[in-house]
């Protein structure tokens, strides 16, 4: 029977360590954030400076930028766990694998939350999209971020020990998180169009996705960590 207190203690330890690593390396602020904003700007170039098209496509472009940034965040999160024999140290550490999973997922989610705030400002600034329904937007971000972080942590550890991890991770993860892209885009579109009722149904799908992957992660992370 899993010890909930031990899992939470271990998760807190892992999150604290990951935040300290970010504080020292500044990868999110110096690399992920500029990358995400660059993606937004490139979309604007690709779709011409026609603001009407950009405004209409802004929910999808926002979540595509989040998705691309998620890949980088996950690669970073698990590259530090495989360098210099850290994976062996983790296996020997006595940390509960479910706690490691939860800690990694929360750490990735915090990085994504910062990115989403910056991207939200970018969409407003570059595309002229004015958000409505703040509650639906925040709830959608929370559920989608939890789903992306949970699924990303699972596939991150799965590919971590492989030499081809950098190219394999997008191939594995992008099809899996396609429902998040669709549901989050639809929920955002509903919020932008002031039709929140439809948006909440999409939010429900996101919440179910997040819960499923959190549950899978709790039980599947240990064997995946063993194989990484």
């Amino acid at each position, binding site marked *: 029977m899993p010890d909930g207190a031990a899992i939470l203690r*271990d998760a807190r*330890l892992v999150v604290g*360590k990951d935040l*300290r*690593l970010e504080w*020292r*390396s500044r990868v999110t602020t110096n690399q992920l954030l500029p990358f995400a904003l660059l993606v937004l700007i490139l979309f604007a170039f690709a779709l011409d400076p026609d603001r009407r098209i950009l405004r209409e496509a802004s929910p999808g472009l926002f979540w595509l930028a989040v998705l691309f940034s998620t890949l980088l965040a996950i690669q970073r999160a698990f590259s*530090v766990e495989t*360098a*210099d*024999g*850290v994976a*062996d*140290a983790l*296996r*020997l*550490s*006595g*940390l509960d694998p479910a706690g490691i999973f939860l800690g990694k997922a929360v750490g990735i989610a915090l990085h994504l939350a910062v990115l989403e705030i910056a991207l939200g400002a970018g969409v407003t600034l570059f595309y002229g999209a004015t958000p409505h329904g703040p509650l639906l937007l925040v709830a959608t971000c929370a559920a989608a971020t939890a789903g992306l972080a949970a699924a990303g942590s699972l596939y991150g550890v799965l590919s971590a020990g492989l030499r081809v991890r950098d190219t394999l991770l997008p191939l594995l993860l992008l099809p899996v998180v396609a429902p998040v892209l669709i549901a989050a885009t639809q929920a955002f579109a509903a919020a932008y169009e002031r039709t929140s009722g439809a948006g909440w149904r999409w939010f429900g799908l996101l919440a179910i996705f997040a819960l499923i992957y959190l549950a899978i992660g709790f039980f599947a992370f240990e064997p995946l960590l063993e194989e990484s």
Partner: protein
Amino acid sequence: METVVRFRSAVCLLGRFPALAGVDLDVVAGEIVLLQGPNGAGKTTVLRACAGLVPVVEGEAEVLGVDLVADRRAVRPLVGLLGHAGGLYDDLTVAENVRFWVRASGSLVADADAALARLGLDGRLADVPVARLSAGQRRRTSLAILVARRPRLWLLDEPHAALDQAGRDLVDGLMVDAVGAGATVLFASHELDRAVAVAHRTITIAGGTASVAAPEPPAVPVA
């Protein structure tokens, strides 16, 4: 005497390659045992199998009373492994690394600080990111984690590598101290002059099997 490590015809595979092809091995509590042998003989695999990191697929293997064939993960909290890689986060400082791994193992932070001092890593060095350390200083940091965790079985793979003379003397002293505190040490080394002096006996690994040298009288502790 309690048997700490007991292998009988133990087989370990790395992929399809039999890295250990039927090893018989006995280590009793309080011993310092040297594993010697040529490169690729299987010394590292023996150490990793003892740590529960490599599965034993045939034969019998028991470490500290834990049946490795049945549940190799159960032995991990009881052992400490110093491998070729240090298991350190480059962007964290020396002290942050040691404290993180010590907390992860459920030990006290005070033990981490004492270990840092023991390894000469207190003071200015404690606040230096590991990425800026020399190879020898990284090795000392990994050793500090091992010391602070106080495992019952120390598994050391080339513990003298990258260390200067003072560092090598320190490692020998740590092994003797560990045994004095009730632990057991199994280590692999190519530096036979130094290693034989500190070891109670030597086991030769070659071609994935072990041959045991006749028991020798305990060596006089170095440093």
